[in-house]
């Protein structure tokens, strides 16, 4: 892991991702900590994400992964440390400067959070017309293009309540892309979906990956982490315990907690049974 005082190439050469020069680092965490009251959820995290890179953040519930990406666009405020976006420090930003930063960072929520009073088209176009001063028709034209890109051109005039979960999340991705952000953050984008709708959302994300946009994806979707991501970041207890290429992470995880986590995620039934047996031994009860 990189130390903040040595942002040199060698420390990041461990990863195959193109982190060779500091100038193409899109997001950099330096000794970032976050507490909610007395409860510290992020412990001095260092992390660099290269421009155009696709990073999957995995870890058990409560490990701080959602908080980690919410810190990037200031949905949560830092307790200490610094986050640089394209080499620019962001810690003290407020008002207009913060709003400007946020328009460069798309955010996709677990619960979609589409504007309930607007149809799909206006959900996508609203920020362009009301934040960026575009003419309504021009904004809608761009929104139409994006809805087409996520395969929902025929749902433009449906309200969120009239769309399936998968469709809502695809509209939400279109909405996050409407300001042409250089970075897009996903907070468990498929966790609230019925299983048969996960694929359509992953497909849109796959098409987005390696199109030049930087993607940081908090996910329990191991197929995404394995097949699409450039790098897997494993978090537990508010710390990054392991970072590796997907192949390496899934076949030979180094950290014991990463190993345990993968066992539980990949073989949920077997690992639960094993745990039950272990517990039975300890309690002296026959399994």
């Amino acid at each position, binding site marked *: 892991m990189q130390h903040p005082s040595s942002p040199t190439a060698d420390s990041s050469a461990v990863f195959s991702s193109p982190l060779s020069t500091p100038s193409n680092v899109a997001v950099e965490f330096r000794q970032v900590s976050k507490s909610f009251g007395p409860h510290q959820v992020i412990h001095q995290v260092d992390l660099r994400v290269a421009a155009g890179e696709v990073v999957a953040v995995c870890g058990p519930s409560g490990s701080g992964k959602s908080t980690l990406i919410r810190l990037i666009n200031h949905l949560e405020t830092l307790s200490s440390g610094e986050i640089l976006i394209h080499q620019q420090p962001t810690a003290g930003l407020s008002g207009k400067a913060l*709003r400007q930063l946020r328009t460069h960072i798309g*955010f996709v*929520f677990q619960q979609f959070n589409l504007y*309930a*009073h*607007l*149809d799909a088209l206006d959900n996508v176009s609203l920020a362009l017309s*009301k934040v960026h001063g575009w003419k309504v028709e021009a904004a809608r034209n761009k929104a139409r293009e994006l809805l087409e890109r996520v395969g929902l051109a025929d749902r433009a005039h449906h309200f969120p*309540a009239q769309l399936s979960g998968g469709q809502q999340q695809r509209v939400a991705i279109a909405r996050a892309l409407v300001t042409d952000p250089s970075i897009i953050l996903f907070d468990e984008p498929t966790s609230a979906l019925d299983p048969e709708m996960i694929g359509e959302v992953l497909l849109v994300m796959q098409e987005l990956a390696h199109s030049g946009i930087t993607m940081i994806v908090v996910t329990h979707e191991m197929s995404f982490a394995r097949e699409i991501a450039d790098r897997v970041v494993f978090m537990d207890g508010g710390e990054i315990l392991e970072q590796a290429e997907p192949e390496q992470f899934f076949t030979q995880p180094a950290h014991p907690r990463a190993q345990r986590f993968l066992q539980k995620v990949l073989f949920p039934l077997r690992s639960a049974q094993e745990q039950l047996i272990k517990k039975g031994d300890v309690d002296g009860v026959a399994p």
Partner: protein
Amino acid sequence: MAWHLDWAGVLTGQPLQWVISGFLTTLYVTLAGSVLATVLTVALLALRLTPGKVGRGFVAAYVSLFRNTPLLVQLLFWYFAAYGVLPQTWRFYIGDVHPWAVLPVNVSWLTPEFLCATWGLGLFSAAFLLEEVQAGLNSVPAGQTEAALSQGFSRWALLRYVLLPQGLANAWQPITGQYLNLMKLSSLATGIGFSELTYQISRIESYNAHALEGFAVGTALYLLLGLVMGWLLVAFGPKRPREKKPWLLAVAKSHGGQNGV
């Protein structure tokens, strides 16, 4: 005593003139009071949402003062106490006859009674409207705010384009009820000698003792005004998306069933 209804005692001649004048006066003061209440509600909401304790403290004091005291007492206060504090030149000016301030059927809005009634009704209703709008805003899920903030919306744009459209739609029924209350409560302005509908009906009663017919007509006119106002407010008020296009929901469902994307 046998029922012997004589509608001509209310619906002809001088009594009819009074009924028409009273009905339109009630309509005028309702419109003026509603406009004032709406403007005040927006101002109070802005003050409450502005950072800082002073604004929020002022709004809290305002709401508890106007919600917890009788409207009749408030009207009496404005008319008999506060109005007298105005500079004498103002009061003389308002007391004069101003042809440009006369509305149809010879009702002037530039009179102490009309101004005090409008002022009292507006201030009183704003306290209730504010809390109803606030309840509507509170009903909008936090995720809507996060989505808008993450897209770079300012606090004002967030309120104007995301929270208010949803909050007002959620709270529209109680808000409609509050405007109807304002209309009905204008009858209390009889207490300051304001010649609105209730005042004029009482006048008929003392003129020819047609109490039953008079109050029956008055009640019917309040009912008519309430029904029309309620219908207009619901018809042209904000709607939740499901109410807006029920047919679209049906189309979407039948469509989705055939080719789930």
